[in-house]
Every structure is written in C-alpha cells, then in structure tokens.
C-alpha cells in the first residue's frame, strides 16, 4: 500500500520539486551566486552559533520559521547557490573487523565525506526553502539530500500576530527550528567510516531522504510553536532516481508527525521546552507477505538553552529524550524478533561554548537502552541494544566572525572529535561474543568542513 500511495503522489511531487528547483536555478543564472548571507546581508554568525554549521541562534530560528524569506532592504531577488564539503581522517582505537566501506582500510582512513550543492533562498515574502544534493564520498554516489520548501504568512488571531507555515520536506523534523531533534542535532558533522551502535530509534535517521512529507506549523505570539503533518514513502522509482532507498522500510499509508514547543526569549538568552511524536507503520524490508506491518510510536521531549554574552560568545545546551514502542507484528511473523513488542529509550545531552564565534568546545552524553530480544539483537552477546558514551569536540572557525579574506560567503571549520563508548551494542566487554570491547570503537576524527 505504501508503494501505491507513494507512486500516486510521487509523480506530481517530483514534477513540483523539479519545477521549484528549475525556478531557483533559472533565477540563479540571472543574478550572481548569492547565499542566505547575501540575501540577508548578514554574516554567518548572525544565524549560526559559532559562525558556522547548523546550530542556530534565535535570529536563525526566526529566519527559518519565516520560510527563509527575509532579505536585506533594497535587494532584489537574489537566488542563492551554495556549496559545502566535508573531509575527515578517522582513527579507531582498534582496527575494525572489516573495512567500513569498499576502497577503505580497517583503520586510519582519510576521506571526502561529502560534497553538496544547495539551491536555497526566498521568493518574495511567502516562499522559500532549500534543496541539497550530495555526493557521498564514502558510498561514491550522488543523491538528493535534505529538502525543505516552505510557504509562510502572518495573520492576526485574537489580537496577536501568528506566523503560519507549510513545509514540504524529506526528513522528519528537518524543518524543526531547534537543534535538539536528530535531523540537526549534535554532532553536526560525522563520518560514515566511524563505527556506530546498531540500534537507534526510527526518528533518529530512520527515514532521512527516504520519505516525503508535509507539515503545517504556527508560531504564536506568546512563544508557542505547534506543528502537525505526515510522511509517506514515495515510489521505488522516484527514490531510485534520486539516489535514495526506502530507509527503514516503506511506510504503510502515512506516518503522522506532531510537534509542540514553547520558547521564552530574554534578549541575550532563551530557552525552549517541547515534545514530539512520530508514528510510522512499515513493512520490514518491503516484505508484505505476512499481511501485517510493524508499528512504531516514537514519543519524546526536548529542551534547549542559549546564552550570548556581551562579547558575542555563546553557551548552549540541548537535550532530547525519545521513547520508542515497537509493535513488531510483521517482523515477529517473519522470524526477525523473539518478542512481538520491544522498546527503545534514547537520551542525548550536549553543551557547547563558542568563544567569539571562533573557537568552540562541545561535549555530548548519549545513552540508548531497550528490551532484550534474542533475534532482533542476535549479533549482540547480551541480546540487548544498549549503548552509551560521550563525544568531545574542539573546533576552530577562523572566519566565524565574518572576517574571511575570501569574501563573506567563504567559511571553513576544522575540528577534532573524540567519541568514547562505555557500552556498545549491549555490553562494555566482549559485546559481540568475539572478544570485542566497547572501547575498541572509540573514534578520533579530524575534520575539515568548508562552505561557500
């Protein structure tokens, strides 16, 4: 059913997406090569904590909520095209059992992680967005990446201004303004060559670029943010044409998504608290032979705090807790799980300090726990999905304050990440029954991230 539904809606969606992107491209050829910074006349640091990367300031969140439409007074239509690339050196404490990808070694790999082109900007006062196309340097393939197209308007309800918006996107929560949810959460860059735990909630990357969805949101004058929408799996041909797959499995019908948050702004500081829910039913690996589907209920809470001091340095904290109920009706019948129902719990807490938008230090604690299942987690000695650890990051953004000698558009960040695992796939020691320890997966990563 998911495929039929997807094919029916995918064709007009594809036509619409191509039309919008063609419009951006045509306009781009008419005006130079501007980006959001050029559109707004603002340096990167106005919208991005640390002057680089996805972590948004309050101004950045407002720009996003307003559909990326705000532009510097007096500027005409300036459709932007931007580019980005990330490269890494990845070292694990112990050689990985197998090379993490073809053409790589079991350790000490240097790679181009990704190179992307963004078509992004606002059209008038009501339409804006971005579409990212990426060359995956590890998988050595092109594909579509994040998509976030918006229509926005302001209206007056009960005497208060309300910003209302409609998004079309391909990654649940990619449209969210805060950096607490997985799509734009810490770490803001990683490498596919680094080992990672096998278990994660579906909300945490299970449907990146594997779905299309639309959500409607409202930003109320009193700080309340409300959003609701749904996601579906486009047809197989649609996804293949864009270099994507069906992610965790084709969604049966549509998957509802809801979001509510409250933000309080004190000028130099602000905090947010919210909740979210994502409810997909899916056919595991597309197998519909059982006539059953697996149903997931991902419900969570998040909170964030930001403080900008008088010297334009930032302190940030982001937290997220997700509880996932898994009714594995199809998987259980197919012999993929011992239990008909399982659960996962995931908690993330990160804090960062950015000095003058130049030097940043961040740390994240993460822990995933869940019910044991002898078939679902059969590769784990303890038959449990549990993992936990901590990630440290130090980074330097030499022109994060907007002083790039190569123009306002050029920016670069060099950083060092180190991830330590306390537990990995169920245990601290001998997690795989083959003598592997969680600490074997401790990963040091040096990255170079450029954008223009």
């Amino acid at each position, binding site marked *: 059913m998911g495929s039929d539904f997807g094919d029916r809606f995918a064709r007009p969606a594809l036509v619409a997406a191509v039309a919008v992107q063609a419009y951006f491209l045509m306009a781009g050829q008419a005006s130079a090569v501007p980006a959001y910074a050029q559109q*707004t*006349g*603002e340096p990167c640091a*106005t919208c991005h904590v640390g002057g680089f990367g996805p972590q948004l300031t*309050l*101004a950045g969140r*407002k*720009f996003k*909520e*307003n559909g990326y439409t*705000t532009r*510097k*007074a007096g500027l005409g239509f300036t459709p932007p095209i931007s580019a980005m690339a990330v490269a890494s050196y990845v070292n694990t404490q112990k050689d990985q059992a197998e090379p993490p990808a073809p053409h790589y070694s079991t350790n000490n790999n240097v790679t181009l992680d990704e190179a992307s082109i963004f078509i992004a900007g606002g059209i008038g006062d009501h339409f804006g967005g971005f579409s990212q196309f990426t060359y995956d340097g590890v998988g050595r393939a092109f594909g579509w990446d994040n998509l976030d197209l918006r229509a926005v308007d302001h209206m007056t309800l009960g005497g208060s201004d309300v*910003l209302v918006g409609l998004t079309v996107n391909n990654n649940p929560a990619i449209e969210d303004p805060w950096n607490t949810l997985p799509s734009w959460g810490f770490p803001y860059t990683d490498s596919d060559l680094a080992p990672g735990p096998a278990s994660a909630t579906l909300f945490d990357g299970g449907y990146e670029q594997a779905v299309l969805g639309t959500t409607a949101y409202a930003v109320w004058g009193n700080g309340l943010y409300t959003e609701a929408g749904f996601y579906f799996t486009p047809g197989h041909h649609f996804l293949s044409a864009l270099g994507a797959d069906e992610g965790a499995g084709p969604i049966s019908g549509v998957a509802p998504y809801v979001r509510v948050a409250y933000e309080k*702004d004190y*000028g*130099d500081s602000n905090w947010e608290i919210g909740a979210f829910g994502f409810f997909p039913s899916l056919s595991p690996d597309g197998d519909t032979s059982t006539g059953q589907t697996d149903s997931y209920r991902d419900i969570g809470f998040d909170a964030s705090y930001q403080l900008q001091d*008088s*010297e*334009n340095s930032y302190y940030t904290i982001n937290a997220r807790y997700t509880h996932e109920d898994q009714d594995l009706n199809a998987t259980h019948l197919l012999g993929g799980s011992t239990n008909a129902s399982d659960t996962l719990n995931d908690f993330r807490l990160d804090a960062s300090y950015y000095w003058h938008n130049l030097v940043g230090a961040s740390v994240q604690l993460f822990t995933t726990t869940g019910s044991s299942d002898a078939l679902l987690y059969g590769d784990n000695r303890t038959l449990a999905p549990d993992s936990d650890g901590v990630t440290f990051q130090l980074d330097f953004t030499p022109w994060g304050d907007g002083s790039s000698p190569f123009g306002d558009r050029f920016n670069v960040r060099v950083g060092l990440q180190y991830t330590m695992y306390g537990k990995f796939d169920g245990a601290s020691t001998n997690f795989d029954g083959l003598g592997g320890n969680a600490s074997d997966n401790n990963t040091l990563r040096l990255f170079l991230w450029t954008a223009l």
Partner: protein
Amino acid sequence: MDRIVALRGVLSFFVAFAAGVTAAQAGAPTPVSVSLENYAYEPENLVLKAGETYRLHFINSSNKDHDFNAPKFFGDSTVSPDDRAKIVNGGVEVKAGRAVDVSMTVSHPGEYPVTCTHFMHADMGMEGSVTVK
C-alpha cells in the same frame, strides 16, 4: 557705587529668570528617554501629547545595533532642523552602546507603530508604538 552694582546684579537675575520661564512656556523640549534593548523598547508604548515639543533621548545600552523605525510618526511630526539628518528612512539608528537625541514637536493625535528593522529583531519581539494624545 556698590549699591548700583548690586542692584544691576539683582535686576539681571530677575531678567534672566523671567526669560527662562518665558522660553519654557514657549515650548522648550520636554526630555523623554527611550531605551533600545535586546529585543524590546522601554517603554514599549510611548505616550506623548499633541502640540508638545520633546527631546527624545534614544539610548542603546545593549551589545547590538538597533533602530527606532516609525516613518509615519516622524512624518507627522516637526523635527528640529538640527536633528533631521538623524532620521533616515523613517527611523533613528542607534549603535550599540550609543545614544541619539532628537528634538521634535508632535502634531497629530494617533497611534503609530514602531519596529526595529535590523535582521529578525521585530520577529524577536522588538516592536512597540507611540500614542499621541
């Protein structure tokens, strides 16, 4: 001779005092302070009297530039010739940590919206109004 000097001094004092009173009655500006903060005006709603002359003292003690943009309000008022250059595109720009004074006579009763036109400041709450009664 000393008495004459003393008398002249007393007379001069009274003449100067009388001149000052007359000037004040004739419309010497009434000082009013408006604070521009991250991201709000204080007061948020400024109340003025039609026909009065004010010296508006815009002070920005924050670490960000702001402006007091009210094109209709400034358009409906008579700004002192010395201060007209401070009104650009209907607003007064006040750099971080600075202050700007504008003398003006407000003429037309009404309610005038005020907003900061800096990037996203209005969306962050930096809006207000001037009420002329």
